[in-house]
């Protein structure tokens, strides 16, 4: 069942099931994030949180909620949404459920770029974001250049990604060993991915990525459907499909890079979120809204679990997403090869 919305030249196909799942996922993600704001060393009833957000808090509650916990919660939601979208775009373009920004080296490139800025330059959030963007673009360009020569088969992309990931990780770990104890510990979370200790500049970083990336992906969704038919058919139906694909890849790289700049390479979210949506909706095409919602829910829930399960210790959220996501990747690997024979 599909409805079509039109506004001038832009038309949007709306599937009720997709909207329903999207709304449910976002509602759950927001609920988890809101609950996460109430817990911590200084527990706070929900009413106090809401009062503080409305402007009726004390200096203390303002500090805890607005300065401390809210940016963390927002970064988690926005990073999850960005990664989910980026994963969906890449998986549909490559027509391969195993392709995600982490697998093809974009996440590792972004975190190496961020670590360079932290350790070598000692820079603040904007420079770290720029470093992550540069690293992500460099990794994506390298993978593309090497894989394109081999005829650009989906799996060559994955293998080249593994090699580039190893290089980027070596560069990042090298910098870690050269930095002092404090910077090293700070930078180490950049290799795993974490939303603890995030502040408002980080929120702005990932929000900026979404502000540019999400509309681009939304406008180009039509082309995704074409690209899924295969290059030849897509080209026959639309001669400018190459441009659309380049724009889609660019937005996926940008979304991944700024999410990584804000929170490090939170692994496997980009892989898992589109898969969950595809399975729930029983359709190949995962919609934008549900994928973003599920991504946000995954990161928010992972962060909450990482804080609560091992208290008083905290784990980086990326550890939990990897612990859940790696088995999913392995399951997909078995499933996909079974189907493709």
């Amino acid at each position: 069942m599909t409805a079509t919305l039109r506004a001038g030249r832009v038309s949007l196909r709306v599937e009720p099931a997709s909207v329903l799942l999207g709304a449910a996922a976002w509602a759950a993600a927001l609920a988890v994030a809101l609950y996460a704001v109430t817990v911590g060393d200084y527990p706070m009833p929900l009413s106090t949180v809401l009062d503080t957000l409305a402007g009726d808090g004390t200096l203390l509650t303002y500090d805890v909620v607005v300065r401390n916990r809210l940016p963390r919660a927002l970064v988690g939601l926005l990073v999850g949404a960005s990664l989910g979208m980026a994963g969906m775009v890449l998986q549909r373009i490559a027509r391969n459920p195993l392709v995600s920004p982490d697998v093809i080296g974009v996440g590792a490139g972004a975190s190496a770029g961020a670590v360079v800025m932290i350790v070598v330059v000692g820079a603040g959030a904007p420079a770290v974001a720029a470093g992550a963007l540069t690293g992500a673009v460099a990794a994506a360009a390298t993978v593309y250049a090497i894989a394109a020569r081999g005829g650009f088969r989906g799996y060559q992309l994955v293998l080249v990604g593994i090699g580039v990931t190893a290089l980027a990780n070596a560069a990042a770990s090298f910098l870690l060993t050269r930095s002092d104890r404090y910077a090293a510990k700070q930078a180490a979370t950049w290799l795993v991915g974490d939303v603890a200790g995030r502040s408002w500049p980080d929120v702005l970083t990932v929000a900026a990525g979404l502000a540019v990336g999400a509309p681009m992906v939304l406008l180009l969704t039509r082309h995704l459907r074409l690209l899924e038919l295969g290059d030849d058919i897509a080209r026959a139906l639309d001669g400018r499909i190459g441009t659309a694909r380049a724009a889609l890849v660019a937005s996926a790289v940008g979304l991944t890079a700024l999410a990584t700049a804000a929170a490090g390479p939170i692994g496997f979210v980009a892989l898992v979120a589109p898969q969950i949506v595809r399975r729930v909706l029983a359709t190949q095409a995962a919609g934008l809204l549900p994928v973003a919602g599920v991504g946000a829910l995954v990161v928010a829930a992972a962060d909450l679990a990482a804080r609560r399960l091992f208290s008083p210790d905290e784990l980086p959220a990326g550890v939990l997403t990897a612990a859940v996501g790696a088995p999913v990747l392995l399951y997909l690997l078995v499933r996909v090869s079974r189907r493709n024979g």
Partner: protein
Amino acid sequence: MGAAVLVAAAAWLSLLVGTQPITPADLVAALADPAAGSSAVVLHLRLPRTAAGLLAGAGLGLAGAVAQGLTRNPLAGPEVLGVNGGAAFAAVVAISLVGVGPLGGYVWFCFAGAVLALAAVLAIATTGRGGATPVKIAMAGAAVSALLFSLTSAIVLRNHDLFERFRFWLVGSLTRADLPTVLQATPFLAAGAVLALALARPLDAAALGDDTARSIGARPAVVRGLAVVAIVVLAGTATAVAGPVGFVGLVVPHAARMLTGPAHVRVLPLSALLGALVLLMADVAGRVVLRPEEVQVGVTAAVLGAPVFLYLVRRRRVAWP
């Protein structure tokens, strides 16, 4: 022969080059008279470091050659199969949770971790139609390694002292090697090497395929089991000594085959020599490129090895099942 001479030359360089350069005369004097004051650097730093490089490099090279023979997969190597990651994870668990001491205690944990990771990767890659294709092995290995890396980080990041101790080792480094470690590692590596070399002819037979191998009297299942044991012991000990160093085990056997052809009788010993050569040279290079600071051998090995991996991916046109 030539390779052995090169390894000796590399070991010589590894003894001499460093932040505190040593002349050949110093070296001879230090070895002749261990009690002399000037020999401390040689005896306590350079000698163990060089010996550790020789052992770990030979172990990784051999493990890679056996792994590629076993899986008939040009992209197999201990790190691709998840073995290094498994061994490193188990070592961190052993030291942080169980509190075992130096190498002798945790090398068994390294073996256990390596076995579990390797079993997981092979089991996952073999499931599904098409069997264990190169791409499936590489992807399963990458996923298992990513998982183990993040679990390792989780443990290390929770403990400041552990973090300080491990942040160099986890990159892959020879700087912490001391003489007791080297002495403890030697028997394990020797046993692994003997087993690997004994597998040379069976691996050649296995390369013909299971049916042919069986028809000429080989027992593929036994060979596979022993090959797994050899990989685990060799790569597990190398990881215990030097941390999870990547790409040496993957790249070296290719060079060996280019030089001698595919027969394992020649590939295996040459891989051991070339592994030692590559790891020593990577370590020496790491001491020189950014003087006076050092680059960890795991980093130089990745910088040298990853491009070769990418080249292999492209040249082999690895097919999806």
